[in-house]
């Protein structure tokens, strides 16, 4: 008991000792939002000035994500897919889910079933309008995943997981990676560089929306897959 207490005190002292230099350093940083801070004057200023025109999307964040720094985004999409691979490679394969003996109340059940289609439509809206409005593939994908998880709560995870065959689930989860890789390779003939988007506005828009859709569908399927794996409903 005493040792545990001593350990806690030691931890607190260590955290404090670390926090002091961290805070001291942070205070010295240029104030956030200050117009002269390098974070706002250097690269960001360039993005704001010409980013929409050059990047091809009115939402500057999307322009940075899918065009200027597309390789980073490809990496992040791959990390999400790898996270699912990791869970699938480690989680128990046997269906070991303990079924919840108490069904959710009829009100919850009804409300979730009622909301489902609306969440799906909203997710789709967020995904395909990512280049003009706040949102995009990642955000829409989370909405899709959340909808699937909500449905699993009232309908039983295995029923939701079986809506699509195990083989198709894997392909859905890899959608983001595959679509991104395809668009990246198409950049070579269309823009002269891997990960480049063409200058022609119509084609660029199509590819941007394709990327958003891929990221959204892949992200949603991975989120649902993580939930299924933990709930023991994953048959892959």
């Amino acid at each position, binding site marked *: 008991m005493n040792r545990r207490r001593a350990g806690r005190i030691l931890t607190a002292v260590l955290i404090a000792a670390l926090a002091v230099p961290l805070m001291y350093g*942070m205070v010295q940083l240029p104030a956030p939002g200050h117009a002269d801070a390098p974070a706002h004057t250097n*690269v960001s200023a360039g993005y704001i000035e010409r980013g929409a025109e050059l990047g091809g999307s009115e939402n500057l964040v999307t322009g940075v994500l899918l065009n200027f720094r597309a390789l980073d985004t490809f990496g992040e999409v791959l990390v999400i897919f790898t996270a699912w691979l990791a869970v699938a490679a*480690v989680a128990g394969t046997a269906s070991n889910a303990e079924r919840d003996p108490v069904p959710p109340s009829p009100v919850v059940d009804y409300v979730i079933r009622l909301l489902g289609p609306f969440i799906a439509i909203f997710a789709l809206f967020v995904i395909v309008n990512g280049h003009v409005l706040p949102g995009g593939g990642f955000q829409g994908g989370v909405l899709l995943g959340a909808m699937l998880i909500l449905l699993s709560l009232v309908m039983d995870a295995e029923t939701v997981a079986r809506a699509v065959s195990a083989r198709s689930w894997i392909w859905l989860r890899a959608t983001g990676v595959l679509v991104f890789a395809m668009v990246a390779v198409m950049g070579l003939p269309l823009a002269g560089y891997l990960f480049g*988007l063409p200058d022609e506005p119509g084609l660029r828009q199509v590819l941007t929306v394709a990327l958003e859709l891929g990221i959204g569908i892949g992200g949603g399927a991975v989120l649902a897959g993580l939930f299924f794996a933990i709930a023991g409903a994953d048959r892959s």
Partner: protein
Amino acid sequence: MIEWSHWLPILAMLPLVGGALTPLLFRHRPAAACFWAVSVASVTSVVAIALLLRLVDSGGFSYAVGGWLPQYGIELRMDEVGAFAVPASLLVLLSLVFSRHYVARAVDASRVSFYYALVLINLGGLNGFLVTGDLFNLFVFMEIFSVSAYALVATAREPIASLAALKYLLLGAASSLLVLFSVGVVFAMTGTLNLEDAAAALALSSPMPAGLALAGLATGFAVKAALFPVHFWLPDAHAAAPAPVSAVLSALVVKAGIVGVLRTLELFGGAESLLQPLLHLVVWLGALGALGGALMALVQRDIKLMLAYSTVANIGYIFIGLGLATASAVSGAMVHAVNHAVIKSALFLAAGAMIHRTGLRNIDDLRGLGRRMPVTAFGMAFTLIALSGAPPMAGFTGKWQIALGALQAGHPSLVAVLVIAGIVVLAFGIRVINALYFRPPARVAVASATEAPASMWLPVLMLTIASLALGLAGTPMLEFVGPAAQSIYGTLP
């Protein structure tokens, strides 16, 4: 004809996409998944070698991803540090060949395709990490190879594997967070993520927030590299993982931490007042790691734990070299990173072949195996001697250069550390060799064992030959990394 530099992003994209496709195409066909993974790794190796030849031929080159100017987009670049992609791709290739029979027993059949996918993704993350010239991109690729490495440790069936993986995951995630935080600090100070740009801006900036970023980056990468005293996740993770994964982790993934430290030094090259105390600290932590790792290796009974502790010792040597900051010590450390990768993967694969054939991993239980598994045992004996740093094998070059650097920098006591650690390494090497060759079998499994299949002994034999060849090629290797060492540190004495 595609222009040369386009192959640079392909170096990372190929294994990443190939890895993602593995479970889609070969989920129920483990043998086909292995063949696919070996093919993808072979092509990646060819690309890496072609890029290396180009680098040797006409110097470093860079690639503007998406065609954007370096500052606005992401710059990939091939330099002498990025050339580590060649040993990385080749070692992963050999580990994949070795995996064919090993994994069939060590990993559940339903997960074999995930295993190969994760190994390929790990290689893609490493390659991207090595050739990127952008700070945030560095973090993204680090996450790719880290997340896949955590999972690969946990694919082993041994019950301790999940615990070891969890320990690795927690420390790895904390260190990733430190790196991300520091990248944020650098961006807030400079407004750019390009390594070269940021380095130029940091040279002029005030020391305090810069010191914070330096400390965060150095600590974060030191955890990934398993520098003493943040090494304690390594022995369990490397010993519990399936043997080919241990080879990849010990040979390559910890070296990526070293590359991260090199990139950090590059970033802060202009801020000498900040770097000096850090380099000083690194030398002594490296010395403690070298001695402590070697001694801990000596007292292990499990052969893979012994090898894992020896990795801690070798990381110590490399950090001594980096911290001494003399031309010979730094290039010695960089060469040792490659040579240790070759030697240690040979050792882990040989140990894996022995465990595969006998089911035993205790050094005392393995005695008498030298006659039963002649090629594997020869590979292990030979590379153990190479590991101790005996000339003319690969372990010698780096250690000799680091010792020279220690004398130049006026630290003769470090030479003593290197010599003592070398003797300890030789001692446990002789202990294993003695058990393998000069003692009668004590276990039925050993007495009835036969040589491992060719997919196992061939990689071991090739790595054994490489550990001699790289030792003989010491001078050209030092000459190759020399300019990089100079440019990372500015000027070196």
